[in-house]
């Protein structure tokens, strides 16, 4: 495994050492996934706030009508209460949405969950409330303030006002922070740096079936089609290594007939057998079972064969 990983170094792969001393692979979230998550979150917040304001507006008008409000001078207490509620709810939604969800057991907002990522403390430390607060306070200057200011500027300039160089400055500011993750190895945004966090992929793997209990891979397994039991000798099994074994495993699990046929032909050519047709799966299952048995037996004696070249 580790040797295979060394051949194809994934730029986003990181290792986490648990307190038990176990090295766990982590994958940093792709920048595109993070941008997508942020967009989803912003859409949710904005739509939620607009819907909320709309309800409040309806309530406000209802209150005004209900009391027969006419004068422009005094706002009644009930209407004022609604204004306070909307300001406070707006503030709480802005910060609470990210804070509460990222502090939860999933460590992810709704948008992050949808794209399958979560936040974690850098280097395997424990995620703390302080870190979550810090990374979310920074988001304001990174995205929201320049974005809102830009929108206001666009509105002003469409009314024919001269906004000068401010637009360029704000665009530069926005770009600087949006592109920040491209300028460091760990795809950190400014808030991640301040908080000591990073964003990682959330693996979701189901436990696959056991291959050595099915079909021709079992110890006495024979082909269902022909009733023949495939037996491979020492010379035939020594052709391949772990990497080929795991490719074969993937093919057997996917079980695409065309792919199985092609691999069957390749293996037969390699080990000098005459490739028949119609019984590819049983052949491959038997080959997989016996190759794995042999490689694992060697493994127990500390002998590993990474691939066919070694």
């Amino acid at each position, binding site marked *: 495994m580790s040797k295979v990983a060394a051949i194809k170094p994934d730029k986003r792969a990181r290792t986490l050492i648990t307190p038990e001393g*176990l090295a766990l692979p982590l994958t940093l979230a792709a920048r595109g996934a993070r941008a997508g998550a942020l967009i989803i979150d912003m859409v949710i917040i904005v739509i939620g706030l607009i819907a909320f304001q709309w309800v409040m507006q309806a309530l406000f008008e209802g209150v005004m009508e209900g009391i027969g409000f006419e004068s422009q001078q005094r706002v009644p207490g009930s209407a004022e209460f609604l204004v*306070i509620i909307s300001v406070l709810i707006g503030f709480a939604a802005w910060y609470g949405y990210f804070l509460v969800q990222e502090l939860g057991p999933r460590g992810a907002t709704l948008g992050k969950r949808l794209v399958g990522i979560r936040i974690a403390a850098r280097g395997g430390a424990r995620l703390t409330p302080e870190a979550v607060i810090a990374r979310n306070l920074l988001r304001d200057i990174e995205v929201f303030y320049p974005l809102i200011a830009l929108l206001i500027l666009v509105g002003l300039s469409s009314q024919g006002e001269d906004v000068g160089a401010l637009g360029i400055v704000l665009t530069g500011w926005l770009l600087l922070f949006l592109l920040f993750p491209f300028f460091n190895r760990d795809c950190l945004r400014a808030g991640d740096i301040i908080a000591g966090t990073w964003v990682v992929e959330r693996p979701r793997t189901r*436990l696959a079936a*056991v291959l050595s209990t099915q079909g021709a891979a079992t110890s006495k397994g024979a082909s269902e089609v022909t009733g023949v039991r495939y037996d491979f000798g020492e010379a035939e099994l020594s052709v391949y290594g772990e990497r080929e074994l795991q490719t074969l495993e993937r093919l057997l*699990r996917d079980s695409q007939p065309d792919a199985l046929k092609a691999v069957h032909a390749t293996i037969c050519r390699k080990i000098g057998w005459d490739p028949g047709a119609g019984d590819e799966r049983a052949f491959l299952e038997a080959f997989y079972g016996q190759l*794995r048995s042999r490689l694992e037996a060697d493994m127990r004696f500390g002998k590993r064969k990474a691939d066919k070249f070694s």
Partner: protein
Amino acid sequence: MKAPVISSWFGRGQVAAPPDIESAALRSDRFRLEREGDWRRLEDILARMERGGLRRIADADLIALPALYRTAASSLSVARETSLDAATLAYLEALVQRAWFQVYGPRQGFIRWFRGFIFGGWSRAVRSLWLDICIALFVMVTGAVVGWLLVAQDEAWYYRLFPAGFGEARVPGASREQLLATLATENSADGLSAFAAQLFGNNSAVCILAFALGFAFGIPSLLLLVHNMALLGALLWLFDGQGLVVELAAWLSVHGTTELFGILLSGAAGLHIGRAMAFPGKLPVLDAAAAAGRRSAVVMVGVVIMMIVAALLEAFPRQLVDGTSGRFVIGGTMLAFWLSYFILYRPRITDAAAGADAA
């Protein structure tokens, strides 16, 4: 580990019963089949924890969680040395990682953290920023003096600092009566609470900006402080011209002692991050920034609370309480309260708080 237990672990009954262990041809698959029940039970507990917090989980499961986590972790390290089944290895790696996030995840929810924050965490964080607070205070005083001197030399600066609004009474050349009128109280409390809510939104946004700008080595934070205090200095100069500086100070002090203290703290928090990034000391820059950022974030939560208090003070007592001495009493009491809370309040550090601080 008998069958009835296993069926209860699977809960929703989606999972097919594992095949007979003896039927597996490979030793590594037998290893897997023997332990699969524990892995699936762990997965089930994790799924429930991620979905709904701890309350919906039976005590027995919660007690079993650390043991199951270690079982899965040791299974993984054995499997890495004995098994070539890539699918099982990938599953175990994902499972152990998920379990690690739960077992070593945030130890306290927001409510519990907040309690620790009010009872000691906040004042501890403020005290740990003492140097930055001193620098920020110096900068603020300088800013006020600069504002005063600028306007005293050239009145045009006043209009540059306060772009004159229509009908604004507070302009150079205003009479004593006009200025006094701006300090007067409202007749009733109508409309003031909405005013308070807006003030709060506005002020806390300024404070968060001052904090977040600390990222650029703290310099923009300091500039923001200078700018805000220059406005204050100019205002002081204006009222001083009519001999009203004491009245203005009383009027400002009602909420100003809280609000300016909050602005001071947020500027100091920003500066703290900037300083840690510019002079990280023995730590790598990223670690230094992260440690400073976490300390400052605690202070910033406090600043938001101070802004709520300040907005309430600004809307109600300042507009309703008349008289210089009454205003000074309120402002002075608030200042004394904050100072004693931050400096004198030192509860003993509990284990949980110590853990949160160390992290």
